[in-house]
Every structure is written in C-alpha cells, then in structure tokens.
C-alpha cells in the first residue's frame, strides 16, 4: 500500500492562520518533522520584508492568503560543488497583535541555519526579533509546564554564559552543558554556576513519555518536534507578544521623532545594587566595548559612568549613564532605532548583567 504523503497534504490544506497551526500540529503527530518558529515584529508587510535583494538568497512568493503567505527561499552557496539549499516557509500575521508575525517552517536544520536565519539577519533593519532574559525564560517555561499539564520539562542541552573570577577581574565565558535536569533543577544549576541561559533544549514530559523536544533561543526562535498546539499557544504567541511589547517600549525614542527634540531615556533596573563596588564600572565599560561595529567612548568612568555609544549598523547614537548603583540609563540621541536599542541592551545582558527595562520619564 502506498504511504500517504502528509506533507503534501499539509501544504495543500493550509488556507489561513488557524489551518496552518492545526495542520502543523497534525503533521507532527503523523510524520517526523521539526517545526521552526521565528517570531518577529516589523512595520513592513511580509511581501516587502521577504523579497529578493540580490546576492546569494532569492525569495519567491508561492501563495498568498488572508494574513498568511507561503514563500520559497533558495540559497546558492559560494562553493560550486555544493548544491542549492532550498525550502518553503509560511509567514503568519498574529491575530490581534499589530505588526507581529511568525515565520514557520518544517524544512531541515540546514535550510534554517544556512538560508532562512541568515536572510533575516542580513535584513535585520526590517525584522525585529525579541530577546528573552533568563528570568523571562524561567517564567515562560514555568507557565508552559503548568498550563499544559506537563509532568516536567527535562533540560537536555543548554547554552550558558557564566561569570568566572579570573586573574584580570572577571571573565564572561559561554559554555554548553547537558544537565538532564528538570526545569527547577536546571535554573538552580545555572544559578550555582553564576550563569544565565542563552538557549535551552528540553523534553516536555507527560509522566515518563516525551511529548516533544523543544528548543528555545534568546532571540525567540523556537523549535519543536511535537505538541505544536501547546508550544504555539504558550511559547510562540507569547514570544510574539514580548517582541511587540519590546517594540512599543523601544520605539519612538529618537530625538528626531519627538517634539522639540526632547530625549526619551530608558532605564535598566537591577534588583540588587549592581554597581555597589566601584570595580563594577570597569567590568561594565569592558562589556560595552564588546558592542560590535560601534564606537564606545568613555566620557567619565569613575565614580559615575558616562558613555557615548555610536552604532555603525544604522547610525544610532546613545548616551549611557550609571548614576545610581541599581540602574543604567540609556539616552537615545537624534537617531535611535528599535534594533539599535535592542543591540545595546542585548550587549549589556549578554556581557554584563540582566535587569528589567523601563521607561525613564522626565519629571517636571
């Protein structure tokens, strides 16, 4: 008897957001696939974001539905002896969430890694991906576990960043581990290592049965090989909402967008007195100097910090101040894009410490 081709059936049956989500759930129950979801926010429609712009990657629109498009992306590797990397992906508009979308594909890891994610990265001015703080990740996964009645989430692979004391003060070291610990245990482990997670791969357990293996990355990219409905509703949709709330918080911060060129700063607040010890100043300045493709000038370094940061990726400029042991202030200057603010904050979170981001309103 001929085996049913569920994948072709899936592509033929998808017509809208709901049929896409249900179709992916059904497909993962029938065939071995991994769905990769890339939640993002953009002020441009998918047809404008996903278009060929020359170079090694070309995009074609295969189908267009209401709030949903199917694209094909082809990557031509520079070496002639390598074959084309080709695959299909959907872009679904998130209902009730302005400018929020999710890219969904069942294509191979190779396609995602070499074709799709580099396309998004290359056109980063058009896509805003979120970033997940360590604590956000803990609360997101905690909700996922309880809402869908999983016995536990067993962390099988983790990418961490640890702070180690070293001869030259303190070193920030990325590492990989395979802890095979439950959710609480994994976060306790990270805490003991003075580390925070960049990505996690876990098994969602129902009793001893593995319902799905799920990976979640700091930029919101999520992969699963099962239980798609729960992963989508509890993780992917929330990551879209998180990306959207970041954009709302980071948007319209540039002085050029504000009346009379007034500033609209942001604050990163720490629950502890992060800068209590003056040695933290040098650590923080060192962390900021890791900001790629940027100028970082120290206007004042001790005892308070005043930095001028210029992001060459898109010409954004910021003043950064530490005038209080538990707060970093980011003051966007004339030009400041959402992406550049995210880069600065990611740099702080990745290389220094994570805090809570807030508006820092003007008084008076």
């Amino acid at each position: 008897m001929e085996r049913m081709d569920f994948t072709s059936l899936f592509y033929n049956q998808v017509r809208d957001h709901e049929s896409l989500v249900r179709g992916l759930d059904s497909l993962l129950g029938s065939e071995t696939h991994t769905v990769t979801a890339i939640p993002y926010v953009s002020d441009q429609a998918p047809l404008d974001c996903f278009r060929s712009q020359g170079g090694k990657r070309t995009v074609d629109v295969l189908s267009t539905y209401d709030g949903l498009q199917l694209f094909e992306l082809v990557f031509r590797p520079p070496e002639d002896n390598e074959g084309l990397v080709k695959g299909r992906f959907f872009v679904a508009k998130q209902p009730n969430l302005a400018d929020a979308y999710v890219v969904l594909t069942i294509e191979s890891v190779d396609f995602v890694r070499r074709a799709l994610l580099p396309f998004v990265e290359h056109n980063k001015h058009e896509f805003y991906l979120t970033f997940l703080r360590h604590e956000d990740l803990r609360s997101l996964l905690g909700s996922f576990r309880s809402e869908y009645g999983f016995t536990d989430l067993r962390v099988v692979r983790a990418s961490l960043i640890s702070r180690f004391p070293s001869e030259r003060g303190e070193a920030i070291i990325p590492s990989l581990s395979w802890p095979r610990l439950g959710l609480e245990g994994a976060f306790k482990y990270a805490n003991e290592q003075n580390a925070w997670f960049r990505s996690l791969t876990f098994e969602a357990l129902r009793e001893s049965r593995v319902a799905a293996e799920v990976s979640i990355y700091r930029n919101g990219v999520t992969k699963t090989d099962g239980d798609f409905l729960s992963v989508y509703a509890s993780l992917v949709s929330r990551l879209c909402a998180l990306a959207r709330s970041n954009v709302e918080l980071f948007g319209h911060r540039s002085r050029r967008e504000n009346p009379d060129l007034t500033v609209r700063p942001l604050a990163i607040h720490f629950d502890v007195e992060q800068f209590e010890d003056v040695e933290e100043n040098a650590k923080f300045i060192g962390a900021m100097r890791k900001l790629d493709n940027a100028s970082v000038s120290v206007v004042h370094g001790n005892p308070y910090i005043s930095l001028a940061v210029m992001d060459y990726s898109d010409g954004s400029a910021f003043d950064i101040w530490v005038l209080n042991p538990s707060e970093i202030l980011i003051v966007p200057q004339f030009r400041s894009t959402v992406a550049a603010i995210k880069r600065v904050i990611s740099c702080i979170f990745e290389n220094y410490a994570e805090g809570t981001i807030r508006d820092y309103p003007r008084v008076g």
Partner: protein
Amino acid sequence: MVMPELQQIEQQGKAVREQIDDYKDTVFAILGFCSLWFYDETTRQNRTYVKVFQGRRLSPYGSGEHPSSVGSESDNEKDITPDLGIVVRDERGIVGEVKKNFPRDDVQRSDKIFEQLKTYDQNLQGWPTADESLPSHHIVLLVHQTTAKSAEDYYISEANKGTLVFSRPFSIVRFNRSDQRQPYFFFQLAHGQGCPIEGSGDLGHGVQVPMQALVHLYSECKLYDAQPPLPYLLHLIWEHVITPIAYQDPKFERLRWNQKLDVNVSVDDMLKTLYEGFSFRHWHLKYLDRQPEIPRRRWILEACQFLVSCDLAKWVIQDEELAVSYKKHKDVLGDFVQIKAKLDAKTLMNPSLPGFDGGTKPHQDPK
C-alpha cells in the same frame, strides 16, 4: 629635564580630559543651580512662574535712563551675558556666573572676574518679562568648593578696602560634585545675603541635586556659551553631524575600520544640528530674541580647522564647506583626545617663536 614624549602625551591627554570634565561640571552646575528655582520637588513639576536662561544678552542702563533707550536688537559692547539667569514671578531676578576654578593668589585674574560681576550690578534691560525689565536682581558667583575660600577672601579683602562694593545683593555660592553612590551636585551659600530659593530648600545649609535628576536636561543641553574643549566639540560633530551624513552613503555599511569615505559637510549644518540638539535652546523657546546662537561659528571653524590641520579634512569652500576623510572610530572621543594630546605635547616639546606658529594652539580658557 625634558619629559619623554609618551609621558608628555599622557599628561596632555589627562589635561584634556580634565578640561572636558570641568566643562561638563559647569553645565551641570548651571542646570542644577537653576533647577533649585524652577523645579518643585513636592509636585514633581516645573514651576510655571519661573523662567531660566543661559547666556542671554542683557543691556545695562543708567539710573536716569529709560530702559527702552538702550535698544534690544544689536549687540552692544556694554551688554552682559551671564552664565545663568532666573526670573521669579516676573518680579525678581538672579544673574550668575560660574567659575569652577577661581584663581588662587592670582590677583589679576581675580580682579577680572569681579570686574565682570560688577558689570552685572547695574539696571539691566532685556529680561524675559513683558517690558524686559525687573525692579531688582541678585548677583551670584558660583565657584567650586575647593576655590570658594579664595573667592571669599578676595571679595572680603576688596570690600574692606572699599574698592569692591555691590549695590545689589551679592552672594558667593560654593558647589561640588559629590561622588557618592548616587552622585549629586551640592550648592551652599559661602558668603553674602543669599537668594532665597523656591520651596523648602535652604541654600545656607546646602542643597543637593542628584545628577540623575538632571540627565534629561543635560542630554539636551551640553553646550553653554563658553567654548568647549576641542575634542569634546569634535566628538559631538563627528557623532551627530558627520556620521549621519556618512551613513547615507551606500558604501558606509561595508566600510571597514581601516577604510575611508569622503563626506562633505557644511559649517551651517554643524551649527544647526548642535544648536538644535545641544544648546540651552529649550529654555529659551518663548524668549529667543536676546539669546546667542550656541555653538558660536568661531568654535566650529576652529574645530574644522583642527581637522584640516590634522589631514582629516579639507576645505571645499573655505570656512563654509568641509570634505571630511571619514573613518569609523572605535572610540570617537578617545581618539580626538589622543590626537589633541599629541599635538599639544609636540607644541610643548618644540615651542615655536611668536609669529612662527604654524600649528594648532592648545586649548585656551574658554571665556
């Protein structure tokens, strides 16, 4: 003994950094001192009945003269431009001068500062009030805590001799930046009658203004009406005027650290951007007429000339348009401090005879 070159450069670099710090502290002092009047801590609102200004041109007139006779349009050499001015309820005014480093044992410079303050001790026309005049005003000298004693001693000594008399209330206020866990500027009356501040603060006992409370203001007002240290001004120009123009070039995105890009920029663009972005313009939106345009054209021209003399730019049209050989710096301010320090060190190590100076002069006292 001649200091080794590297040591000399390092010393000059430190000196430039100190100049930048002094300049910033002076701006913070102006903002902080004025905020004692315009900001109401209880309501967390600005007081609508307080007006503040920086560098405003005020015109003295004699006691027998009518205020309108001094005119308002053009600069008069007798006009004064105090570092700060405050008007409360359109009834009383304060004019102040900030001298972070009051000279010690330098009578000539001390004389000069008080001569300047004496010019404030006249009827003044040009206040931001309906008829541009006020019945009275107070004069304040703000000096750093470390030099306040020198200012006070000088004043008392001259006053006792009868050579220095103010007919209007005069005070010396000391300030310092306290580098505590939450740095703040501290203002305290050092001498004189004091000028009662609004609200519950008492200048006699001293008042603290946290720097954090001034971040919004400082981010918008980095330049006052005194020439900033050259590397600091160049840093503002490079980041906020030249880089945005360079960014428009399609080649910018792929520009490597060691590559250069030709960028044309006009002096007017520099003036406009820095005026809109970093002068005290926001304070003067409702009374712009007597406010100077900051930065001064002369400062910008000196900054441009510095770039030209360092082979970082060429004049396309002399004093109008510059062709900058743009490169991406990893530390814009640090690099300009270093360039300036090297030049200053070179000048110090190879002094030239007067009239034979072909290079850039070290930074002069700004006012």
